[in-house]
Every structure is written in structure tokens, then in C-alpha cells.
């Protein structure tokens, strides 16, 4: 079972494919080299034999038969050019000199087999290339050369290529198997982790090879994905627990009201009072549900499709203006500073809700008379909204938690509210790729939201992209 699986791996298939391509191209190159070498050798051989014959004809032309015979003897003595075979024929075919078999006397080349001269394999005849040259009307010179060695060379060449090819293919396939086995082990590692997670061990993570290669990067990404899913699952678990917990209280109240009415109410007026109390409890529950749904909807990101240019300066100003009478009634100073004409890309309705919730939060959690400042300014490609107060502030430990769903600070458990106002702010900020910072206003609390300015996306200054809002808490912040 092990081997077939190995052969089915992608890396093995790749190795096999490379081996095939390499083999085919090696054969092609080999054939090319072989044919060329062979034809070059052939040409050289032809030229050598022909030039030798012509040189001997020159000897004959200048010095007659005696010079020719001297030259032939000298050549045979010196074994020049590997020892050619020289034979002289008369036109009628009578052999005057040499040992070549009789042949048709016609100018030009011819391949023939001659008597063995000792250097060929046993039982085989000498392979000869002959050149016939007429010296005089009655005299022919035939120069022959042993081309057996050349044939041997070709065979050797083929053999070398064949062995080389075999060696390469063995290495390629062997390497493929080795690489595939390593690859398979690492894939098995990922598979085992995935199976463990399916079995319920959600804390399992893939062990990295440590080489930082593509598989490691994939494994690291998968691990990050698992972390993120784990976090989301945790959040979901918390949210459902929180919802159950948070809705029990108002449901309990509702039940109490109805229970009391059914046992004690006697007059229509008393029933009326109980019913309107029950309705207001139910409304509170419905509001909580609506808020949860709205947050979920915002977090789904579907509203991003409807983003338009929003004139933030005017929007902030208009919302702040709405709170002016309340601030006056409560003896608060509402300090406002707004940079004009700052725009962002977003959902106006949600932005309004974000500003309302932030200001409302400041009003709710600080005593009457506390100063509230709203400032909105542009800087460094960002539109920054700051809502601050000079109240008691929030302890550093609680600062990170105020944006959690249903989270209520210890000091504000008794004030009305469902603990979802700032969660909604966080969701809206996340939708707009804005970052939230909770800072110490010394004294008091400062919430700072930095939106990417309109057009920022095109200019490549994206902040946080599609990530949810980033929370930063700075302990030593600007006073």
C-alpha cells in the first residue's frame, strides 16, 4: 500500500515528469551529437583518403613509377595516418602491387570489405573505405583505409550516452521517491492534525518543519486560520452565554411583574400599571435583541457595499448640536472642535449611530456637570474623532473590555443600559477599517477613533483593511 501512495504523490509525479522530459531531451541531444560526430568523422576520413591519393598522384606525375613506389614504401614504413592500404592495378584489372581484392576500376569512393589485418574482432573482415585514382591511362591507384575503428567509436559513443541516460533517470526517480516520501510525511503530519481537530482536540496545531519553505508557510497559515476560528468560536460561546445571562434578568423582572399582578392586582388601574410595566420590560428585551442583530449585521460587512462619501465634519457637528440642550440641562460644558470639510467613505447612518453612542456613553457614565469634549480633525491620511470627558475615567484593566458585548464596568452596573452601545461602536469602526484607542484623559476617559480618509484606499494607505477594529490602550498617553 505504501508504494502506490508514494507514486501518486504530486512531488513524485513532478519528479517523474521531469525525468521523462530530461530523458527525451537527452536522447535528442545525444542523437544530434552522434549524427554530427559521425558525419564529421566520415568527411574527415574521405578527405584524408582522397588527399593521400592525390598526393601520390603528384609523386607519380612528377617522378614516375619509381617516385610513386618510394612514397608508398615510405608511407607503409612510417605507418603514416594509421597505415593505409595501397594497391596498384592495371586497367585490365591485373594487380601490380598490394593486397586489395579486385574491384571495378572507376574514379571515386567505395566501401568494401578486405582481408583481415589483425585489428578487427575475430571472424570479421576488414572494413575498408577505398578511393580509386587513375594515374595514367593504364594505371590505377587504390588507397584504402580501415574504418572499423571509426565504427567502434560510434558504438562507444552510443554506449556512453545510454549509460549516462540510465544513470540520470535512476537518480531522478530515486530523488523523486525520496522527495515524495519527505513530502508525504509532512502532508501526513497536517492530515493527522486535521483529524485530531475533527475528533475534537481543537487545540492541536501543525508542527512546522522549521525550514520556512512553502509547506511551512502553508502550515503556518493553517495554524493562524485555526487560531482565528478558535477565537471566533470562543467569542461565539461567550456571546451566547452572555446573551442567555443578560436576558435572564429582564425576563425574570417580566415574570415577577406578571406574577405579582396575577396574585395581587384587584383593580383595573393596578392591572394597567402591571401591563405597562410588563410592556416596558418586553420592549427592553426587544431592544437588546435588535441591538444584537444590528451588531451582527454590521459585522457581516454587507453594508460596505453601500459606502458613500460622507461629509464627516458636518455629520459630527450636527450630532453634537443635538446633545447641546441636554448638556445645558445637566450643567455640562460641551467643548467642540471640528476641522471643516473632512470626508470619509462610509455608511452615514452607521457613522451617526457611532457618534451618538459615543457621546451618549460619555453622558451616561459621568456625573452631571462633567465636561465633555468632542474633537474631530484630519491628520496623516486619517480622520480622527475624539470624545473625552474629565470624569473618573476607566481603570486600565477595564479599558480593553468596554467594547465587549454586554460588558459593563463595575461602577456602572446600576445605570440603565444593555452594555451593547460601545460594541456597536466597535462594529461600525471595524466596518470602516477604523482603529479605536482607549486613552487616559488625565483625568477621565478619551476614546479615539481613527478613520481612513476618503480616497485613502486608492492612495494605498489602507489601515487595518478588512480586519476588525484594532484596540490599543496606551497607559502613558497625551494629557
Amino acid at each position, binding site marked *: 500500500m505504501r508504494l502506490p501512495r508514494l507514486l501518486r504523490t504530486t512531488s513524485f509525479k513532478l519528479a517523474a515528469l521531469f525525468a521523462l522530459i530530461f530523458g527525451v531531451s537527452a536522447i535528442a541531444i545525444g542523437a544530434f551529437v552522434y549524427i554530427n560526430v559521425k558525419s564529421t568523422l566520415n568527411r574527415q576520413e574521405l578527405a584524408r583518403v582522397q588527399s593521400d591519393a592525390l598526393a601520390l598522384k603528384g609523386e607519380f606525375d612528377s617522378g614516375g613509377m619509381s617516385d610513386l613506389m618510394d612514397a608508398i614504401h615510405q608511407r607503409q614504413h612510417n605507418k603514416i595516418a594509421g597505415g593505409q592500404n595501397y594497391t596498384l592495378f592495371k586497367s585490365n584489372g591485373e594487380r601490380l602491387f598490394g593486397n586489395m581484392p579486385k574491384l571495378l576500376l572507376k574514379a571515386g569512393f567505395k566501401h568494401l570489405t578486405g582481408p583481415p589485418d589483425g585489428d578487427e574482432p575475430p571472424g570479421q573482415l576488414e572494413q575498408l573505405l577505398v578511393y580509386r585514382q587513375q594515374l595514367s591511362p593504364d594505371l590505377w591507384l587504390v588507397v584504402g583505409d580501415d574504418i572499423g575503428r571509426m565504427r567502434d567509436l560510434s558504438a562507444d559513443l552510443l554506449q556512453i550516452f545510454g549509460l549516462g541516460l540510465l544513470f540520470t533517470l535512476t537518480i531522478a526517480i530515486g530523488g523523486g521517491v525520496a522527495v515524495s516520501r519527505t513530502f508525504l510525511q509532512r502532508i501526513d503530519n497536517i492530515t493527522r492534525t486535521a483529524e485530531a481537530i475533527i475528533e475534537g482536540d481543537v487545540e492541536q496545531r501543525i508542527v512546522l518543519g522549521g525550514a520556512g519553505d512553502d509547506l511551512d508557510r502553508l502550515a503556518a497559515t493553517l495554524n493562524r486560520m485555526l487560531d482565528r476560528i478558535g477565537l471566533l468560536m470562543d467569542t461565539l460561546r461567550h456571546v451566547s452565554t452572555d446573551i442567555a445571562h443578560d436576558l435572564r434578568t429582564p425576563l425574570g423582572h417580566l415574570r415577577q411583574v406578571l406574577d405579582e399582578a396575577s396574585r395581587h392586582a384587584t383593580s383595573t388601574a393596578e392591572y394597567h400599571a402591571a401591563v*405597562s410595566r410588563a410592556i416596558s420590560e418586553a420592549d427592553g428585551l*426587544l*431592544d437588546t*435583541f*435588535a441591538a444584537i*442583530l*444590528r451588531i451582527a*449585521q454590521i459585522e457581516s460587512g*454587507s*453594508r460596505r457595499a*453601500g459606502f458613500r462619501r460622507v461629509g464627516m465634519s458636518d455629520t459630527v457637528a450636527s450630532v453634537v*448640536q*443635538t*446633545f447641546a*440642550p*441636554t448638556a445645558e*440641562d445637566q450643567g455640562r460644558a460641551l467643548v467642540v472642535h471640528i476641522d471643516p470639510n473632512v470626508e470619509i467613505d462610509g455608511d452615514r*447612518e452607521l457613522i*451617526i*449611530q457611532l457618534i*451618538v*453612542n459615543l457621546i*451618549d456613553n460619555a*453622558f451616561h457614565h459621568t456625573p452631571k456637570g462633567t465636561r465633555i469634549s468632542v474633537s474631530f480633525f484630519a491628520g496623516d491620511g486619517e480622520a480622527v474623532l475624539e470624545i473625552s470627558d474629565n470624569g473618573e475615567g476607566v481603570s486600565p484593566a477595564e479599558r480593553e473590555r468596554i467594547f465587549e458585548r454586554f460588558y459593563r464596568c463595575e461602577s456602572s452596573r446600576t445605570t440603565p*443600559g444593555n452594555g451593547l*452601545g460601545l460594541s456597536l461602536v466597535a462594529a461600525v469602526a471595524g466596518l470602516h477599517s477604523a482603529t479605536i484607542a482607549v486613552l487616559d484623559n488625565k483625568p477621565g476617559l478619551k476614546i479615539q477613533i481613527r478613520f481612513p480618509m476618503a480616497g485613502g484606499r486608492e492612495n494605498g494607505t489602507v489601515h487595518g483593511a478588512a480586519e476588525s477594529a484594532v484596540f490599543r490602550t496606551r497607559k502613558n498617553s497625551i494629557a
Partner: protein
Amino acid sequence: MKLLLVEDDVENAAFALRGFREHGHTVDQALNGRDGLYLATESKYDVLIIDRMLPVMDGLSLVKSLRSAQILTPVLFLTTMSGIDDRVEGLEAGGDDYLVKPYAFSELNARVNALARRPPISNQVTILRFADLEMDLLKRTVARGGASIDLQPREFQLLEYLLRHADHVVTRTMLLEGVWDFHFDPKTNIVETHISRLRSKINRAGDPELIQTIRGSGYSLRATTKTA
């Protein structure tokens, strides 16, 4: 008033029907979109109340069909909480208002009343009058009994909204949407605060109260019978 309610949720429909009949309205009911379209094209209604999610033909298609047939009866869409985003879609399809379920009947009633009387107020009106109160929309001035009153922009908008819906109940939500453009409940008392400021500005000593609080519903611009 003659109303058509297109709603497939029987319990919710019964709740609305009972309420409307108590208020003396005639209500026809359809349980799916196709029947609703048929009724709306066959008879004349003052307001159509249409659920977004309907069997056979959904509310959005129903209203699109009506509008393409040149039937311009005002439409109030009912949507569920999870369909909060449907508002814009509904208004673009030809709806005139929307209400998120579950709702208080008084809210539905106030909105239906507001829709039914929408046509008479034309944009050409530049002066709104009620009792001895007069608002000039061009000069942006308000006067009561001839004495001019200085209002903040938001207070002016608030009074204008009340004047345009004079004698009818406007709910807190209608004011938030119409005056502030807040399509969510801000959970603060901004409406109450602004109404109380407006009252103190338009009521001189001894003047009868014009802005009435309707318990459990909202506000209404009504002249208190001076003899009472």
C-alpha cells in the same frame, strides 16, 4: 379610512386588524403577495400595509408591480428586525415608509395616518399655520400671535414636522427619523429635551399648550379647546 393589509403571519395580522377596526378603519386582508396585488389593483385604498416577506410574491415585487401600473397608493412596509437594511431597498422600490416588527400598534397607526394625509401638503406651501402659530419656510421665521419666536435650526425642523402633521399623532421614532435622520433608537432623551425646549419657546405666559403629549404614543399639535 380604507386600508389593505398584506401579511401572512396570522397572529400579527389579527393584532393589526383588531387595532385598525377599533380606530374605525375598514381593513381588507390578503395572505400572500399575489392576492395583495390583485386587491390593490381592483379597489381603491388609502394606505397599503405590506410585509416584506410574503409567500407567492414578495412585498418588494408587489410594490414594484403596483408602481409600474401607475398605482400610487401610499405603501408602508413591514420588515423584521434582521432586515434592518431593507429600508433603503424598500423605499427605492416605491415604498413610502417602513416599520420594523415587532411594533407597538400606536406606532403603526400614527404612521398610517401620516401616510394617508401626505398628498395635500405640497411643496409649494411656504407658510405653515396652526392656531395662532405661523411658520414661514422661506424666511425661516416663526411667530405666535404676531410675536416672533427665535428657534434653533433643529427646533425649527421639529416644529415644521409637527406642523406638517398637525392634528395627528407623531411618534418619537417618526421624529427621530424625520427631524434627526436617526434610523435607530439612540436611547437618550433628545426628543423629550428638544420638545420641552420648543414648548418653552412657543408658549408665552398664559398661552394654551399646542404640543400635546399623547401617552404611550408620542406628540401631537392640537389646539386645546379653550373652553375646557
